[in-house]
């Protein structure tokens, strides 16, 4: 039997109150694409951080080609041929591609040579990238390419990829997969972290499934159904949101001819956006990050005011109204960025309940705040949405991402909106909680509210949307009924192979 490239033996890592990894054992073979599957909080990140030298295991050992391997820091891991593409990019917007790559190198070569190398590597692997473009101008897919090429320049033996497709269009995913397959054919092993089962079935040779820090099973993805893998991951049968056939009412929110200049150098201008969402309807808006999602939410929530006529609620012009006035009329929103936008990190959940709840929950009289009522409202949200926290007096930043997301969504849903706009409602939330959040959006729609769900997760949008539209560079495609849309059609709506070629500028 051949020696595996990397062998993990009984890796255990405990943090106060939680065992992140409990005697995890598995092997990654040479030239193998190995999937690491698991819900959020299953311990995937901790595990790869141990492999990459960011975290040291409490016990257990790793063998790299049969030799003991215990990287004290990422530099050592890179020295041993292990590279990692993180889910969140660490790039400087204001610098160009080669400058960004040079920053991450121990001994960067002269800029001209580096640019040539970048061009060579990017062409060899089918990831076209202009080394002189400013990163701030790149799409999410192109930014990811910068990260991948940064790794490939080290000539890695093992490439770790953390949820690489979460920001890509279907077409971009296709291109990424071709690159990964080429790498595999050259003998590079890939550890591929994801919870998207279909893509794992397409791409991976082998899969290890983690649940609550333990290795609960291994399988060959191509021979295992997505449902079986999901149930291994979740540990119980999956609950899919129910959709009842619904009648839609009159138009609730109506946006017409909306154009808003970009708020900052790296923002996106909205261009001639038209949309209508009816009472009882869920409008799903897809698109790759950075195509105007934040800007659209701000315009709908009232953070950005526009000409009065551009946004209408039940036929009345509300474009000039700010967030408070819109809340009073029943237009609520939950922005994507939980910490710092939807919630103030250092403030308590009670204070964060006050943040958007003051108007509709009667938490203030003549400007004076009723903290008792705010606390009750926070407690209601915590209880109804199963937010795991010791109590409403805890700071928002002390909650895990998923729990804070439940709080943020719950806070708006429980205020009984007429129109609810959410951006990335289940980003970073575990599968069970995500299903609950989607169900709550559907319940809201069933009660007659109009819901606009902006998301990059196409599976999510297909699951809950009645109509579907896509944002691409600040333009919104015409909404189409979601039923019957194929992945290819959606891909084309998202902008086709947008950003897939080297820009000619």
């Amino acid at each position: 039997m051949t020696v595996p490239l990397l062998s993990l033996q009984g890796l255990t890592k405990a943090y106060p109150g939680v065992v992140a990894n409990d005697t995890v054992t598995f092997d990654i073979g040479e030239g193998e694409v190995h999937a690491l599957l698991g819900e959020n909080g299953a311990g995937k990140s901790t595990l790869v951080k141990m492999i990459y030298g960011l975290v040291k295991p409490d016990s257990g050992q790793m063998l790299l080609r049969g030799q003991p391997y215990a990287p004290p820091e990422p530099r050592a891991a890179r020295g041993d041929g292990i590279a990692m593409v993180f889910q969140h990019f660490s790039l400087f917007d204001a610098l160009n591609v080669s400058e960004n790559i040079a920053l991450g190198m121990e001994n960067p070569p002269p800029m001209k040579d580096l640019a040539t190398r970048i061009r060579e590597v990017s062409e060899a692997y089918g990831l076209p990238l202009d080394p002189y473009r400013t990163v701030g101008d790149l799409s999410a897919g192109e930014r990811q390419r910068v990260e991948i090429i940064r790794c490939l320049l080290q000539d890695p033996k093992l490439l770790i990829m953390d949820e690489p497709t979460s920001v890509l269009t279907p077409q971009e995913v296709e291109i990424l997969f071709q690159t990964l397959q080429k790498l595999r054919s050259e003998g590079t092993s890939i550890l591929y972290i994801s919870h998207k089962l279909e893509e794992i079935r397409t791409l991976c040779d082998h899969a290890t499934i983690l649940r609550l820090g333990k290795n609960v099973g291994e399988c060959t993805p191509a021979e295992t159904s997505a449902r079986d893998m999901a149930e291994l991951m979740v540990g119980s049968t999956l609950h899919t949101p129910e959709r009842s056939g619904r009648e839609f009412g009159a138009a609730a929110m109506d946006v017409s001819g909306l154009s808003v200049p970009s708020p900052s150098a790296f923002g996106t201008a909205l261009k001639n956006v038209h949309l209508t969402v009816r009472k009882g309807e869920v409008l799903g808006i897809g698109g790759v990050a950075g195509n105007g999602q934040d800007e659209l939410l701000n315009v709908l929530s009232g953070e950005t005011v526009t000409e009065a006529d551009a946004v209408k609620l039940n036929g009345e012009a509300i474009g000039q109204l700010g967030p408070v006035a819109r809340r009073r009329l029943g237009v609520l929103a939950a922005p994507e960025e939980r910490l710092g936008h939807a919630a103030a990190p250092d403030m308590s959940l009670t204070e964060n309940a006050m943040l958007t709840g003051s108007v509709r929950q009667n938490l203030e009289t003549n400007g004076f705040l009723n903290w008792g009522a705010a606390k009750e409202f926070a407690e209601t949200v915590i209880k109804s949405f199963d937010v795991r926290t010791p109590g409403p007096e805890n700071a928002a930043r002390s909650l895990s991402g998923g729990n804070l997301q439940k709080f943020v969504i719950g806070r708006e849903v429980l205020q009984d909106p007429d129109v609810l706009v959410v951006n990335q409602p289940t980003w970073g939330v575990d599968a069970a909680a995500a299903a609950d959040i989607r169900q709550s959006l559907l319940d809201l729609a069933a009660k007659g509210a109009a819901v606009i769900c902006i998301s990059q997760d196409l599976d999510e949008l297909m699951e809950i949307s009645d109509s579907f539209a896509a944002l691409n560079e600040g333009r919104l495609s015409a909404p189409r009924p979601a039923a019957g849309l194929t992945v290819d059609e959606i891909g084309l709506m998202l902008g086709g192979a947008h950003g897939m070629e080297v820009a000619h500028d």
Partner: protein
Amino acid sequence: MISLEKRPQPSRAWSLATPLVAVLATMVFGGLLFAMLGKPPIEAIRTIFWDPLFGEFAFYYRPQLLVKGAPLVLIAIGLSLGFKAGIWNIGAEGQYIIGAIVGAAVGLAFYPYEAWYIFPLMVISGALGGWAWAMIPAVLKVRFGTNEILVSLMLVYVAEQLLASASLRFLKNPEGFGFPGSRNLQDYPSAFNADLIAGSGMHWGVVAALIAVIFAYVLLNRHMLGFHIRLTGEAPRAARFAGVNPSRLILLCLGMSGALAGLAGLFEVSGPAGQISIDFNVGYGFTAIIVAFLGRLHPIGIMLAGGLMALTYIGGDIAQSNLGLPSAAIQVFQGMLLFFLLALDLLTNYRITLHKPEVA
């Protein structure tokens, strides 16, 4: 190896304890400093912290504490509102001067006519003067995006020129034998901000400072505006999401701090100082910045910090005259206090962890 680890949420215990620990550390290191200067350290510390309150001549120093502490607290309360929202009014000194000039000018305009309403009118105009001076950086920031730190700071020097002009020209005492300076308001009963109880140091400025403390406390803890101020400081995007209009907040915060600084100036010129003179301002507007931070931008904390700061001023003066400590040493001592406070402040949000170096 020592490393810092971010706490999941700010430690309440540390946020209350840091000012006390900072004062203790200042005493220890200040004592060392005095010892190195060849002065008895314990006696020096006692002279600064104990004598003004409980020493032989405390009956004289205690009222001074109120006189010096009140303007500091009044100004610092106003500044803290802006600081909490991330709006940095550094020019309270200028607003203090303008408040004093405008208030005194209104009072002197009535001289020698006596009426009950003169002093209240002066109070209102003092506040308006400070407010107007603060509106300059506020409006420039809102309209043109200028930096309020620079503009408010530079306006201090403009105000100082106006002060010189007032004492040499337009408010000069016509019966002052050519000396610079206005008429002494202490000799004009309708305009005199006298001690409410003779010899107590308790003048209207002290009352105003107490009211400001209570007002700020209620505003920050119970009112939507205070909530919005805190929210803007903690998370500006969340504040916009909550419906805060940033421009309005800038105008309000700078306006309030300017008005309070103007009030402090008016109470000073009409009471303890008595007259507009070239060197009327003694840096309360700048010291109040320290007081605001020493008090953790919390109204009650600011009240205590104002008292402490006044104590080190008075105690420092005594130490200079009794022990011959150089005034620079006293300034270093006061600087240490802020230094230790800011350094220890880190412990509110971080904890220090010790771990053995791992074998690579």
